[in-house]
């Protein structure tokens, strides 16, 4: 095991997969000469050259489409969005082209492509740069959506995503790039669509994914000091969703809190709550509660931004409420 950053874990995944398969290339803004806006692609240009590490103009719609076209004829592109906020400009290509091509061609053209980049809020970047898009993307049949929260998960999920035959959206966390964690020296993959119980407990399930896993684990640590033991489920992949692991946890604890970075309305938590009420109706001892971003565009001021974000105190409060404490 080595302790490396989330950024370096992603970089290792890219490097290993580009060495493994010369059809794999990375394309996006500043991925080459600049070494990546967040340095995720550091050193790749030097190792693989400019045909496989392609700096693009600032044209998300255009280069996302270039990736889809290249995937149609046999390449395996990794499209880096400098952030998912900018990827909104490319949604036509992600949704209308990549996600639907296999279906509307009757199985003739699968699109093995990865769309990746940082998602969600960082610090004081204000409304247009602080958004979490999981529920938008998870809504679309034909996409897989993964949300790694740790260096180990980031590397294993990205490697699997690159090997997948379908369009896979990888939502990284801007605030996670410097996070350190154990990553094995030997090669490994994490299967898509499998959740992981990151902490065992039998009083309440906290279902979460992505960056919010850290909020959930910190909340669980503090709750444990009060004798409340939370079962923390990290979905890892939000589409396809691992319903079995969610249901098994809730059947054990009989209570659930969902923690997500995005907004409440039509958010991931709504889907997860629906899954729980269908699978575990008779097991529930309390309504499912949700912790999420407040229903406002992200404000700039430090105190307002803090108030808008889901956090540890909100999570603790929600867990206590479902326990009627």
């Amino acid at each position, binding site marked *: *095991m080595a*302790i490396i950053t989330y950024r370096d874990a992603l970089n290792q995944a890219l490097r290993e997969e580009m060495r493994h398969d010369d059809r794999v*290339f990375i394309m996006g803004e500043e991925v080459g000469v600049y070494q990546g806006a967040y340095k995720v692609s550091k050193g790749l240009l030097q190792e693989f050259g400019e*045909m496989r590490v392609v700096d*693009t*103009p600032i*044209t998300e*719609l*255009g*280069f*996302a*489409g*270039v990736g*889809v*076209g*290249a995937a*149609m*004829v*046999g*390449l395996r*592109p990794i499209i880096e969005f400098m952030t998912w906020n900018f990827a909104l400009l490319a949604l*036509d290509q992600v949704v*209308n*082209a990549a996600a639907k*091509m*296999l*279906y*509307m*061609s*009757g*199985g*003739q*053209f*699968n699109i*093995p492509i990865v769309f990746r980049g940082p998602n969600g809020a960082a610090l004081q970047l204000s409304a247009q740069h602080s958004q979490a898009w999981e529920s938008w993307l998870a809504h679309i*049949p*034909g996409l*897989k959506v993964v949300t790694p929260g*740790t*260096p*180990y998960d980031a590397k294993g999920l990205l*490697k*699997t995503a690159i*090997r*997948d*035959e*379908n369009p896979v959206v990888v939502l990284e966390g801007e605030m996670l790039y410097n*996070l*350190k*964690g*154990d990553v*094995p020296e030997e*090669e*490994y*993959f*994490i*299967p898509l669509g499998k959740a992981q119980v990151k902490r065992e407990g039998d009083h309440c399930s906290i279902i979460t994914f992505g960056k919010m896993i*850290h909020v959930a*684990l*910190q909340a669980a640590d503090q709750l444990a000091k009060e004798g409340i033991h939370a079962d923390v489920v990290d979905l890892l992949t939000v589409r396809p969703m691992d319903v079995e692991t969610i249901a098994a946890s809730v059947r054990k604890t009989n209570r659930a809190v969902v923690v997500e970075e995005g907004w409440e309305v039509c958010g991931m938590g709504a889907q997860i709550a629906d899954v729980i009420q269908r699978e575990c109706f008779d097991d529930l001892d309390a309504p499912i509660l949700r912790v999420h971003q407040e229903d406002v565009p992200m404000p700039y001021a430090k105190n307002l931004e803090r108030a808008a974000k889901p956090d540890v105190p909100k999570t603790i409060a929600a867990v206590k409420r479902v326990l009627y404490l």
Partner: protein
Amino acid sequence: MPRKKSDTTDTQLRRELMQQMLLIRRFEERAAEAYALGKIGGFCHLYIGQEAVGVGAISVLREDDYVIGSYREHGQALARGMAPRVIMSELFGRSDGSSHGKGGSMHLFDRNLNFLGGHGIVGGHIPLATGVGFAINYRGGDQVCLCFFGEAAVNGGAFHEALNMAALWKLPVIYMIENNRYGMGTALERASAINDIAERACSYDMPNEVVDGQDVMAVRAATQRAVQRARSEHIPTLVEVRTYRFMGHSMSDAVSGTYRSKEELEEHMKRDPIALLRTEMEKRGEWSDADMTKLDEELKATVEDAYNFADASPEPALDTLYEDVLAESAPVGEAAGAGATTTH
């Protein structure tokens, strides 16, 4: 098609082009009838009047080149060699269709013919063509990608983003504007700040050309020049082909009377691409009324066969509903160091 001993290569070529254009004409006429009868649903955009564009351009390609188009692609699919039976079945939403009934009129694909669709968002497929060009260069190939779209697409961002990258990276793509004068019901001059839209290429220092889209030989020649440039020098070209559609935008609007006059339509119909080629062939003494009648009868029979085949083709089985949403992926290795801890 019977060939006389005296046929020159050019004569044979013109006969083949005539055969393809007339096939498209008869196919589209039958599709219009089928639509009126409710055999075809949804949107259905016909190619009548524009046959010389797809036929002329595709006729110069190699088998390993790529073709991609918009939702007005029946004619291009036929010109590329897709079987009338398979296309008609797709229009009918039947299991023998090219997408087994999941695509319909706007989404014809044929992997074996490098026919890459069939795309329904105006301009959305233009970046895909750029990506195909990128892949050709990536592999060091000498194929080209021919991309068809309407003149209305040139006002959207996808067009500009795609052409800029193709010129910047020297990609072997031919961007072919089928300028049929109307984006649905909006005339070119009501939508575009410049009317000579081939000039848009100047923004990207890209070679460009304007060509008479009713003259199949002219389309062919212009495409040949662009293909040559793409294949040997990896330089993209923007070709503006000036044509006219003789039908409405789709099957759901009137042929004339709202956004264009009957007189205008009739004026343009005097330059029917099939009639123009016929005149040319007759002038050369290589085509007779009897040839025309014979070919027409053959093609009507082909189209009738396609219609009957499609009509008899079963609807897709309901258990195919969830098929082809995702492709199967080979399982990858197990997670190593299971339970690996994380430093927070």
